[in-house]
């Protein structure tokens, strides 16, 4: 048993390292002088250490502005998705209404269409909106958020999650006279917190790392998000790897922290509490 356990840990350690090597490389490159990035013999350990990459990220760009924009966009997208995706998912999973599967099928189509072909019509729509709504459309944070405000990915994820909840629980609550919204809030959501946490993590990730749409929509610092702003560090023809990787590290850290916090709070909290209670 102990041998098996040791083997298990060994496997976990080895795979974890394999998962982390590229991140270490990113970190180490970000700490090199630009001229040392490809210098032989310092693949993982930079020598001398240099903070030039980070200095560039913080001084060449209005970093706090980009960071705040990214935070606003991400928080808005996550909040909207958690509310609307969950609500719609509940309806698709547990409520019966005419056309339910047809509508759901149509929604799935939006996942299947490569976004590149919709860019031009969507962009034109945003130009048109901006013509009479100065706070919306191109070059606004709202314009970045809008197309991601509701994501079929999230609805699908939550629908499948709700589908695993036994109908008998819901029926029991209905018999007690609970309305559907109360039911969703008081009965379904609490036992679905791991699902909500997953939805939060993935929506946050995609919003935080999204590049193409924010790039098209933003044209000034007022609406540039972090990934779009960081791309400006590269030059024509050449890439400054130290700067780019410093940017990548700075972008990844908030997401890694968010994951660590969320998985503690939801996944483990629930595993320890709710289900065992019964």
């Amino acid at each position, binding site marked *: 048993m102990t041998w098996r356990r040791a083997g298990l840990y060994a496997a976990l350690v080895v795979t974890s390292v394999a998962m982390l090597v590229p991140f270490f490389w990113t970190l180490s490159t970000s700490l090199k002088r*630009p*001229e040392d*990035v*490809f*210098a*032989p013999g310092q693949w993982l350990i930079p020598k001398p250490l240099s903070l030039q990459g980070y200095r*560039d990220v913080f001084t*060449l760009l209005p970093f706090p502005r980009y960071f705040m924009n990214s935070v606003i966009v991400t928080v808005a997208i996550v909040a909207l998705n958690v509310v609307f995706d969950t609500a719609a998912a509940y309806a698709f999973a547990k409520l019966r209404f005419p*056309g339910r599967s047809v509508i759901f099928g149509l929604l799935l189509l939006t996942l299947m269409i490569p976004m590149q072909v919709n*860019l*031009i*019509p969507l*962009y*034109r*729509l945003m*130009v*048109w909106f901006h013509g009479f709504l100065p706070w919306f459309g*191109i070059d606004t944070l709202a314009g970045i958020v809008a197309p991601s405000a509701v994501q079929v990915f999230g609805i699908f994820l939550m629908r499948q999650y709700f589908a695993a909840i036994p109908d008998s629980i819901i029926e029991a609550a209905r018999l007690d006279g609970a309305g559907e919204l109360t039911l969703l809030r008081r009965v379904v959501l609490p036992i679905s917190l791991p699902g909500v946490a997953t939805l939060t993590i993935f929506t946050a990730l995609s919003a935080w790392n999204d590049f*193409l749409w924010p*790039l*098209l929509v933003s*044209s*000034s610092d007022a609406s540039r998000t972090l990934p779009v702003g960081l*791309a*400006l*560090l*590269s*030059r*024509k*023809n*050449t*890439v*400054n790897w130290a*700067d780019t990787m410093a940017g990548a590290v700075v972008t990844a850290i908030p997401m890694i922290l968010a994951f660590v916090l969320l998985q503690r709070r939801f996944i483990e909290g629930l595993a320890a509490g709710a289900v065992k209670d019964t």
Partner: protein
Amino acid sequence: MRHTAKTLLAIVAVGSVVALAACSGSSSETTPDGKPHGEVVVWDYYGSATPLKPAIADFEKQYPDVTVKYEALDYETMQDKFSVAVSSGAGPDLATLDMTWLPTYAANGTLQDLSQISGGNLNGKPISDQYSQGALDAMTYDDHYIAAMYDFDAYALYYRKDILDQEGIAVPKTWDDLLTASQRMAEDTNGDGKPDKYAFQLLPDTFHYAQLLFQNGGSILDESGDQAAFNSTAGVSALDYMKQLLDSGGSIYWGESQGDSTGLPGIKDERIGMFINGPYMMGVLKDGAKDQSGDWAVAPAPYSQQPGSYLGGTGLVIPTGAKNPTAAWALAQFLLQPKQQALVYTAAGAAPATTAALEQPALRKPDPYFGGQRPFPIFLKAMSTATHFPYVATWPDIDTAITDAVNSVLLGKASAQDALDQAAQTADGKLGG
């Protein structure tokens, strides 16, 4: 469901209006007296090393009625953003575009006629007097100017002078010289049969193949411009020569997978001892390989029958739908004055394009990085014999077909004749359709 249908209809209606508005491209700020005023939106892809941005304050001082709205973009994604915005009537007034992107844009009517806007003059003198003939050709589409060249790209040979001297090898002047020089210079230190020190960097792309093709007296398309001509004898022997360079053991195949098209990783660890590339590599070397200062030198690219190179660079363009072309052209002219052009070299490490700028003493100083050599005149000479890529709408497809042919020969999958014939067939299909 009815709701959905209604919304859908509304969207269709809205979209059509937008599409129409985008197509009309009316100029809202026409200038009755011709004096530039109002706002100019500039899109610049140079990134952190921009030569445009520092010039703008001076421009605004000189033109107090004009406000410049400067927008930084990155080179990699500029094309996508430019295409989407211009087609939606929300493009800039002035933009920097890579000359290799121009064929697509020019052929699709994305760029305004600069001959008309400028009246043929740049800063008071005819445009035709201020550029080399090759540059003028590259700026012209359908008998009018579509771009004003801002920096140029034409190829010369970079070599590790210290190694060449040490081995007593003469600077290669012909294809045969380059073959023997690369063979003598390259070393195979780990004995795997492939050189891993001081090799010639063989870039398997259309740019480098085209250079050999031009030097052999060939051309990419025939005179009429609607038939491929690169599978001529000149083209086949150019590709055979590339293969020979690789097989002789003096060259290193530097494909996409190397991770950095400049070759900097290979330059740093000395796998690369010679390469053929444009003036921007001077800046790359100085930034990225400080420790090799004094080791490098530049010479005209070796050739077979006649000197030749692809000609590219950056063009300043005024896209269709620009709201303020007059002020945009005023800014373009300002940026093309010798003083501002010098920034292309000092800020971006690239080569300015106007003849006057290239005459400046600042660009003709001995360069300590290149051991006191004057590298600029060499690139200038390269430009004078360089040829731009053909201005056909389907150029990206033809480019891909040629790149594939080059790679299939270098990877030993096909003979030069077969590969080029096949590429020519693809190209003809694209040109016909």
